[in-house]
């Protein structure tokens, strides 16, 4: 069997294994899904009155704040889902089964690739679910073309891929599942310091550059532009650059960790 077909076959076997785990034990995925949905409802219905007045220039118009909020929360959903990835990778590494995989003549990277593809699929599913809740409470995309939707979908997948590789690395360096959950925490906290909930210009001046150039903000602004027709500008390229950089970094970090001698 050629190296490539071996890689594809073993990776898809590992993917099936991970999806079987996720299907049989959905509680972890569902718990992580609760965070973005809760935040969505919290910000729209509890804080929404005040916040929409601030964003809408005086009028308490919740619909405008929902529109502002949803793109950020969709990306936050990905951050939340990949925490589960870090936990399950870490769990996996403490199990003897990984030692077994390492002593088998299978494609070396397939264990990680299986996790990554599984995690990206879960992220997409989670985003769809959170998106459905958003639509149910009144979110509507304004004048997004089919191409915009496609681009938005591509961005979400790319973003999920980038965060997943980072989460896999975090899972690999964590001694246990608990530590993995803690180490991956920034992935769900970062959106709080981005343009997800409030515009950058309302933040303290010294903090604005940090908020503006961290990975979430360009991705959020790009998604906003695609779904709502706001100005994307340089954010599109910045978002893609961040995703590619994080994915490549995460990939090399994770594979070097995985290939080094286990403890």
């Amino acid at each position, binding site marked *: *069997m050629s190296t490539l077909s071996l890689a594809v*076959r*073993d990776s898809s*076997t590992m993917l*099936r*294994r991970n999806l*079987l*785990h996720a299907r*049989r*034990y959905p509680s972890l995925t569902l718990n992580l899904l609760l965070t973005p949905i809760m935040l969505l409802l919290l910000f729209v219905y509890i804080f929404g009155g005040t916040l929409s007045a601030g964003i809408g220039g005086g009028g308490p118009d919740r619909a405008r704040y929902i529109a502002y909020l949803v793109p950020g929360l969709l990306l936050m959903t990905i951050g939340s889902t990949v925490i589960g990835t870090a936990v399950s990778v870490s769990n996996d590494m403490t*199990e*003897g*089964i990984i*030692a*077994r*995989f*390492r*002593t*088998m*003549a*299978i494609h070396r990277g397939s264990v990680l690739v299986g996790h990554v593809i599984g995690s990206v699929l879960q992220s997409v599913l989670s985003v769809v679910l959170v998106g459905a809740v958003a639509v149910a409470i009144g979110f509507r995309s304004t004048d997004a073309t089919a191409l915009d939707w496609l681009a938005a979908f591509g961005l979400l997948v790319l973003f999920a891929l980038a965060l997943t590789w980072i989460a896999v690395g975090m899972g690999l360096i964590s001694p246990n599942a608990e530590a993995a959950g803690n180490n991956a925490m920034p992935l769900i906290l970062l959106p709080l310091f981005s343009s997800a909930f409030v515009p950058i210009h309302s933040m303290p001046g010294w903090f604005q550059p940090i908020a503006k150039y961290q990975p979430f903000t360009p991705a959020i602004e790009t998604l906003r532009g695609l779904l709502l027709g706001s100005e994307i500008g340089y954010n599109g390229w910045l978002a893609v650059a961040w995703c590619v950089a994080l994915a490549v970094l995460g990939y090399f970090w994770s594979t070097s960790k995985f290939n080094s*001698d*286990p403890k």
Partner: protein
Amino acid sequence: MTDLAIAATALHKAYGEKMVLDGIDLAVPEGTIFALLGPNGAGKTTAVKILSTLISAGAGTGAIRIGGHDLAADPQAVRAAIGVTGQFSAVDGLITGEENMLLMADLHHLSKADGRRIAAELLERFDLTEAAKKPASTYSGGMKRRLDLAMTLVGSPRIIFLDEPTTGLDPRSRHNMWQIIRTLVADGVTVLLTTQYLEEADQLADRIAVLHDGRIAAEGTAEELKRLIPGGHVRLRFEDPSAYERAAVALPENVRDDQALSLQIPSDGTQGDLRAILDRLDAADVHADSLTVHTPDLDDVFFALTATPDQAEEALR
């Protein structure tokens, strides 16, 4: 020599300052069982991890050939020839026993039909058919170990590493596992097993290496190892102190234990040797109340070879 399944020279491994394996040589002929015997921390598991490609060998290690393949140059070929069942069960607890087996079949690139057939056969052979649809995490220790070995056998490996295959098992499961291991070798498979149980090595292994502090303290068949140390004796016990004294005179080579009124006479435990002792007792008209023959077992070998000065002091206290 081409008929060696496992050949390693000067196996070294250090973690930081601590030398775990300090130059061990292994040569295991095809179709035999080789036991690495040693206490916890002797380096058994480290040796298995290196030979099974799980971790890299340390500086100073010579050539390692497994199944005729050079481990450093072609680890994938080695992996294709071996199967490993580790100390801690290498099963996926989240999925069922059957799913674990089918996962192995997929990773060995068997066809769907072959995979199902082999999985079913092995589950049957290891008495797991009934539990096949239950998550592996719900299995007992013995069942997990059996599933673990069954998974290892899916790829029909010619060389199998068993790292403490019976540690933590109850006596029945242990005998069960021994029987399984014997069957494997009957099929021509080579087994390298590690154990801290002397009885296990004695029961199963063709050759035994006693590992101590990262070195091989002794190597040979169980019989050869037992011959390495003295200690075979006949023990005579008496109720009557006067009989005890007379026996001590009749058998002057004895070691006395005045408190227990017992004598130890060095002996190799053979029929002729015993008859000679009994004849001398009869000639002196002495009757012992009990006679026990003690031949050195691997325990004696083990303690003699692996006792550190500290432990020897401890034992004296």
